[in-house]
């Protein structure tokens, strides 16, 4: 089982959800989240968009990357990711008609962000399609986890509701402003770092105990 996990890169892709979270640990697409992820719906829409623009590009890069000339690769990746904005628009429209429009430029910025463009050309090209797929799913899940928690927290404290349903007065309206997005992301990153350190320490103590035994 462990060999299978290693072979298909499942172990690495699972790490992208938390311990190598693309936003909180690797520091990618912070600006888009801080500015655009102000409600739970926005978070969900950005997560769906990110999934759709990331996974196909990584698979495309692993399958066709090396067959394309070097100068054409990045253009093709950007093209694939931006084309995937069309299905993202329709999927996001199913839970809110205006959500994609209200997000403004941020979905487009996600399509040309680090993972679809740089990660695909540096890492996905050299990996197998299944491994690239698993990595893409892991990165997208990590992003979705952050986006949904951040969006929910900002909507709850900023407008006293969740998913558009208001059930209380706004506690702290400024939370919806971009600068608070950055501050909250900083706190979330600190929490992730704290947990990672704790897990590392416990693993080290476990290993040392086993070694002693």
């Amino acid at each position, binding site marked *: 089982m462990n060999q299978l996990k290693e072979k298909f890169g499942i172990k690495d892709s699972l790490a992208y959800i938390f311990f190598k979270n693309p936003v909180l640990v690797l520091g990618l697409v912070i600006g888009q989240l801080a500015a655009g992820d102000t409600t739970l719906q926005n978070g969900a829409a950005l997560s769906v968009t990110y999934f759709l623009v990331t996974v196909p590009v990584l698979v495309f890069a692993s399958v066709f990357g090396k067959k394309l000339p070097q100068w054409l690769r990045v253009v093709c990746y950007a093209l694939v990711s931006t084309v995937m904005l069309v299905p993202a628009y329709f999927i996001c429209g199913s839970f809110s008609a205006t959500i994609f429009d209200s997000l403004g430029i941020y979905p487009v910025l996600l399509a040309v962000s680090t993972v679809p463009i740089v990660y695909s050309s540096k890492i996905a090209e050299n990996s197998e399609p299944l491994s690239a797929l698993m990595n893409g799913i892991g990165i997208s899940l990590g992003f979705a986890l952050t986006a949904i928690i951040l969006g929910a927290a900002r909507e709850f404290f900023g407008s006293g509701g969740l998913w558009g349903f208001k059930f209380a007065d706004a506690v*702290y*309206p*400024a939370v919806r*402003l971009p600068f608070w997005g950055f*501050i909250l992301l*900083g*706190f979330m990153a*600190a929490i992730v770092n704290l947990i990672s350190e704790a897990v590392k320490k416990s693993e080290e103590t476990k290993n040392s105990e086993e070694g002693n035994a």
Partner: protein
Amino acid sequence: MNESLMFQNAPHVRQSESVRTMMTDVIIALVPIYVMAFFYYGPRALLLGLSGILFCVVFSAIGALVLHEKISFDLTPAITGLVIPLLMPATVDYFVIAAACAVAIFVVKLPFGGTGNNLFNPAAVGFASAAICWPAKVFSYPAPLQTLEIFGENTAAMAQSPAYSLALGAVPEYEVLDMLLGSVPGPMGATNIFVVATCGIFLMVRKTVNWITPVSFLLPYSLLLALFPRIEASSFDSLCYELFSGIAIFGAFFMLSEPVTSPKRDFGKFMAGITSAVAAFLFRYFGELEMGFAYALIIMNVFSPLFDEICEEILHVLRRGGKLKKVFFEKKPKEKTEKEEKLPFVRVLKKKKAEEAPAEAVEENTEAEELSEEEITEEPVIEVSFDETSEEEISEEENEEQEEKEPSEDEKTEEEAAV
């Protein structure tokens, strides 16, 4: 451990004073301002100040518990708690003070390492965040000389502050003397110009506040206000109205001069004062909010380390000569070492060896070869063609070195025979 050598965060005091005495001076200086606020608005003003202290001290203690640190009893949270309510009207809700204090402690102070490590002025950030969240509460001022209710809904008569009138381009209806005495609507700690200035002078005399910072701020700020009036009045009248409304004078003594976030060198303080004055003027002139000083201060706090660095560099040049290149000019790119320069040759040699090696060995190292090939094609340094002779020379040199290190078979046999 040698106690004479200690690492300590700012503020650095080289006299008989300590951080505690400095903070005590600031608290003593803030007391008359609270007394005046009590005179104008009643006991609610004092209670707001006490609640500010309470919130900041409690939040600091909670932070210390969360971070597993020892709870310190320094006076800095108390000062933050005292300054924040003075920037707001006396009618402001207690929860607004609590939120501002929470931002000041949990966002500005603790994440950066607590007292002496904060990048921004905690009171300024706390006030700015409250102003963004609840502008209606923070910028609605009660008329002075009325006793406000301590708790419950606000029933006080509200009035337009001079700063608001100026922002609209109208001449305030108040006398300049009233503005100096503080009997005008406004932030409860910033309207009493006489008292604030006296307290500021007290701090300067006590050397708790370096005179350079407030003076280098207030002089250019006044000059800019006089040169670019927003109202149809004489330059002097405009200057008086602009300078005595708002929180600039209070901020110059109690916020801009904070030892942690202001530059450490005198010249740095001077630069920070001037740039803060320009920023505060721009915020006042073009900004929509009345109290642009807080935002200007937050922005200028970012540049404090830069001012220190520039100051250090200038002083270095003045003392020892040389050029200003550390701060003003880019550093020269690091030259390649001999080892780095030889690296492409080594790679080429490795590749050559791998080609000569038997097919089985090549199959085993296919991945490594692919990587090295890619690297070689990608890096522009490696594209430079090498002479065959140079490679041969290198290989010959290597062979010679090996021969020197390892004796040949003939030599070995001779040695054995001798033995």
